[in-house]
């Protein structure tokens, strides 16, 4: 029983971590007033870059950083469109979701002799070292270091958003850009930074898949996590802790399907029905506990100076 519990925790943590980074990216971007539907595309780019840099350098940390940079570069496109050109942020985000994976696979083919997957790559360490608690149920708690990074990132983003002047400015830009503008806050620059940060975080999210969970990049390494992260942003009411919680809930539901799905679990639900559980549970939790969530007021609205 106890070991089952530890297992649930371990799987929950593992499953939710890429989502956490992606969702944090969404929170940061949307808090500054830029809707980010393109998390999926940014994560894919990060997943690929992380794996390939780790492969070529043998240094997973370098890969992790590079993934952030790659995610940021993709996000730059989104920022140019939605901040500089006041473009429709939804459209731009959808475009990112097409372009990101397109380029990731394209570069992968170029770098790996026309293969769309990398060989196994050096991975990030685990929290207590490779073999800690090996063979005991506690090994489930020896999570990937990215799990902790995700938690740190959550606290960090919360700290930035709610305790520092930058956070105050970011939130003001997302709520009332004109007010920020009259106080000499550069709305465009703030939004640029946030969108880029969003890309960096999403890139980390992608890399925490390929550098911790599966240790290679392949075309399906990121398949839908970006959208779940997007849902987590809304579910979590655009706050770092809320989003983190939503990702955990989703991870937990996945863990439950895993634990209930084994032929020795004593539960006989068709696996297709069981697989619906996380998605179904999300809706139920929304109905029962969460309800309406209100976006930052200026979320999705391009800021045009002097517009009345």
């Amino acid at each position, binding site marked *: 029983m106890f070991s089952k519990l530890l297992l649930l925790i371990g799987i929950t943590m593992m499953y939710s971590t890429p989502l956490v980074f992606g969702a944090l990216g969404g929170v940061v971007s949307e808090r500054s007033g830029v809707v980010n539907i393109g998390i999926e595309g940014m994560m894919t780019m990060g997943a690929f870059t992380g794996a390939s840099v780790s492969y070529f350098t043998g240094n997973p940390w370098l890969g992790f950083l590079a993934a952030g940079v790659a995610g940021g570069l993709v996000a730059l496109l989104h920022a140019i469109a939605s901040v500089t050109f006041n473009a429709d942020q939804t459209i731009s985000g959808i475009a990112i979701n*097409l372009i990101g994976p397109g380029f990731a696979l394209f570069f992968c083919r170029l770098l790996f002799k*026309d293969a769309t997957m990398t060989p196994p790559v050096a991975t990030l360490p685990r929290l207590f070292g490779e073999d800690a608690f090996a063979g005991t149920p506690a090994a489930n708690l020896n999570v990937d270091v990215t799990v902790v990074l995700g938690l740190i990132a959550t606290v960090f983003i919360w700290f930035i958003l709610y305790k520092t002047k930058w956070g105050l400015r970011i939130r003001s830009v997302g709520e009332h850009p004109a007010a920020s503008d009259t106080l000499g806050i550069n709305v465009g620059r703030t939004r640029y930074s946030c969108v880029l940060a969003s890309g960096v975080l999403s890139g980390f999210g992608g890399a925490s898949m390929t550098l911790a969970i599966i240790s290679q990049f392949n075309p399906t390494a990121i398949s839908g996590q970006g959208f779940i992260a997007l849902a987590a942003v*809304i579910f979590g009411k655009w706050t770092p802790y809320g989003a983190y919680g939503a990702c955990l809930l989703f991870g937990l539901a996945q863990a439950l399907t895993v634990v209930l799905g084994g032929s020795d679990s004593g539960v006989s639900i068709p696996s297709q029905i069981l697989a*619906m559980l996380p*998605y179904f549970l999300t*809706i139920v939790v*929304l*109905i029962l506990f969460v309800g309406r969530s209100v976006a930052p007021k200026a979320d999705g609205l391009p800021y045009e100076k002097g517009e009345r």
Partner: protein
Amino acid sequence: MKLAAKVLKKPIASTLIAVLFGFIVAAVVLVAAGYNPGQSFGALFHGIFAKPKYISNVIIKATPIILTGLSVAFAFQTGLFNIGAEGQYIAGAVAAVLVGVKLDLPPVLQIPVVVMAGVLGGTLFGWIVGYLKARFGIHEVITSIMLNWIGLYLSNFVVASGTYHMPNSTSTYPVNPSSYTMLLPNWKTSKAGMAALKPHQWLYEVMLKTDVNFGFLVAVLMAAIIWYLLYRSAKGYELRAVGFNRDAAEFAGINVNKNITDAMVIAGALAGLAGALAITGTAPHKISTLAAFENNGFNGLSVALIAGSSPIGCIFAGLLFGGLLYGGQSVQQDVGAPTEIINIMIGTIVFFVALTKIVPVLAEKLEKRGAGHVQ
């Protein structure tokens, strides 16, 4: 100058420019990767236009995404973001199969019944999203994303279920042929049909080698109906009022919650119709285990965006998209360039569609410069 400015102000100009940029970026990427862009685009156009049956195939491929595009565009016009067309499409296909396999009525009855079943399947999914939004204020994006996955597993559940699973396959039984919406499905494969078609080479090819079906006509008709509904009917007036300004609509006595639900119901019905028509109109007329999304709904998203959410625009955007998807295969086959090129190209087009808001602004500048010269 004036003329140029005038032309540039038209929305279609922006879209065409976006398409042009899509090609340019794709060309740059191709060159960078060592492929000949001219050859690649040649292959693309060859793959789309070289034979009547290719054109026919493009139209067939375009049909479902025109409809899902319409679904998304319609929702946009009513202030909703229907990222759930994928799931609604699946629900439509599943429902059509559920009914089409079991029932075997004469075609005049069977076809409407099966198609309506599909429409209802999509409607149900749309309704859930709309109802949860209206009743509990739950954001449609979350429910839609979740329902997409639920739809996928539901479909797989049906495929695996005892009564529908076809032994030795990864699919259900096909729907009964009485549900088929191809053009003369029985006649064309009969001896008489073959004989009659044989002398007309292209007709023969189009009829026998592609699943020419009524779907496209239905899609065009739906685009017209949706346009009419949105811009000419009292219901459309309500839906748009709620979409643009919920508070004002509520104050004016319009039932906001009902209209949110109705909008999602209609959007879902359109995507469901797409799924149903794919089942009745194209081989293999059944659903198979889905390992991943087939993107019929997600492509509809891009179609709607390229079309600027115009119902009529969806027809053309859908054809463009269908052409790129279908013809894109040839780029890989003929030139060896990876298929990702097409995704990059489509992505770029969508990206520039987002940017093209500036085209009319530029046009205005151009106009002003022109005026300055006159002075």
